[in-house]
């Protein structure tokens, strides 16, 4: 293998480039990214960067004296992949021929119809998004957050601490019911009320009021919430349109086996755009977590370089969220659990550990300000033998 193209220059792309070099690949390494920035860390964008305690430099993922011998092609989007010619075609017409391809194009924030030309309505995914949002976050302003997922909750928390008046609107009856289950979703979303943030659940958004700039959010239940600015946090969708027609199997992301190999030899996929086969779940599963973008490239690069995707299973998904001074951590899968029990601490104290089980077997763990105990449980889940669901 003489040339490898990594398409995507965020954490998954950088981790792939690092893994290629550490696993002995010494050929030409091209990294393509549609943002102009060198790889940066996204999680602080809704927290420390928005709060103003992190600078742009603090977000840099690369070490100042790190030299991976990478040819960076930044600020240019990949438009298509030609598997016959083994070529990535870029928006500026450039063509990158490569023996191996790592697809790491990530995901983008979902938007709501009718917001394209309305000033004051934001999404948060990129550094540029965060710079734009930060410029508008001023004490006393009224912020409406649409979507009580992790991004929405973190922005609400940061904005509240900065002195904004914050309302969070969630379409579901219980926030975070998907990733955490209903019981824990209720407990975690109570943090909003603890800190003087209004939470409105079970109603969708019908539209926005305001001519050039948003001045209100109209809800399905007829209410209109006055707003000086709006954050739309309604999830992300994988950036895989550029692969349509390439021959790669796509289904809510790039379908991969347990080692990250796509349906085409010589092409692996990692990060938010990749749906690896998960033997624990017995199905393909696209994981939109930072830790997956950090860890899985090692496995995918080993697959790419050896042509063999057998090897250990990826660790169970893990994510964290810092909100209202509380540290939340979750590992595993809540959806497949049939019970969840508090094993330590008390939700009333905002300090507890909960374990999710299926047929008595632990399948997930949630910690709120329980870092040490959570770490041990997470390890245990990671080393448990992988059993496919019956």
């Amino acid at each position, binding site marked *: 293998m003489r040339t490898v193209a990594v398409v995507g220059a965020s954490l998954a792309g950088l981790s792939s480039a690092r893994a290629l070099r550490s696993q002995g690949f010494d050929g030409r390494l091209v990294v393509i990214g549609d943002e102009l920035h060198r790889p940066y*860390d996204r999680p602080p964008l809704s927290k420390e960067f928005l709060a103003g305690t992190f600078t742009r430099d603090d977000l840099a993922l690369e070490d100042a004296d790190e030299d991976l011998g990478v040819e960076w092609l930044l600020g240019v989007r990949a438009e298509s992949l030609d598997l016959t010619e083994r070529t990535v075609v870029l928006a500026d017409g450039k063509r990158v021929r490569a023996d191996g391809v790592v697809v790491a194009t990530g995901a983008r924030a979902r938007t709501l119809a009718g917001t394209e030309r309305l000033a004051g309505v934001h999404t948060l995914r990129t550094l540029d998004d965060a710079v734009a949002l930060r410029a508008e976050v001023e004490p006393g302003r009224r912020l409406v957050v649409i979507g009580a997922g992790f991004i929405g909750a973190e922005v609400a928390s940061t904005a509240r601490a900065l002195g904004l008046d914050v309302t969070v609107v969630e379409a579901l009856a219980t926030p975070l019911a998907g990733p955490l289950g209903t019981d824990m979703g209720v407990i975690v979303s109570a943090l909003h009320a603890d800190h003087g943030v209004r939470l409105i659940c079970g109603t969708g958004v019908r539209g926005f009021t305001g001519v050039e700039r948003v001045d209100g959010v109209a809800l399905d239940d007829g209410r209109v919430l006055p707003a000086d600015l709006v954050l739309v946090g309604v999830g992300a969708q994988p950036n895989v349109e550029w692969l349509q027609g390439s021959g790669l199997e796509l289904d809510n992301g790039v379908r991969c086996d347990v080692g990250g190999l796509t349906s085409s030899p010589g092409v692996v996929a990692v990060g938010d755009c990749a749906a690896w086969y998960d033997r624990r779940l017995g199905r393909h599963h696209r994981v939109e977590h930072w830790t997956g973008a950090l860890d899985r490239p090692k496995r995918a690069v080993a697959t790419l370089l050896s042509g063999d995707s057998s090897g250990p299973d990826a660790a169970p998904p893990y994510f*964290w969220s810092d909100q209202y001074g509380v540290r939340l951590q979750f590992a595993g899968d809540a959806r497949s659990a049939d019970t969840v029990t508090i094993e330590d601490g008390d939700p009333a104290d905002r300090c507890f550990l909960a374990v999710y089980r299926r047929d008595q077997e632990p399948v997930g763990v949630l910690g709120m300000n329980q*870092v040490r105990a*959570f770490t041990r449980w997470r390890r245990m889940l990671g080393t448990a033998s992988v059993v496919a669901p019956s």
Partner: protein
Amino acid sequence: MLSVCPLSSLARGEAVRVEAEPPIAVFHTEDGEVFALDDTCTHQDASLADGWLEGCEIECPLHASRFDLRTGQVDAPPAKKPVRTHRVVVEDGHIFVELSAEEPNLPPGVSVGSQGAGGGA
């Protein structure tokens, strides 16, 4: 020198956080060695004493950066800067730490004296 605790009260494979400015983590490895480092990960605010100890390495409980306990060097990203190490003296079965005179590598947004007991960002 900072008095930590009797060696017998820190089991092998365990760590203890010592309140100091900045806080310190003392590790007792499975091989019976004792090491002291700044407790705060150099990447982002998390307590290394809450992390996963394996051999002579500590893995940060938040983002899985790994540091060599002997040198403080980064073994695995996302951390970029080493953790400051301190000299450990075990005398008459008691652990003492001699604080380093070097500057600590605290993560962005964290300064000496600014940390709460449980971390949290």
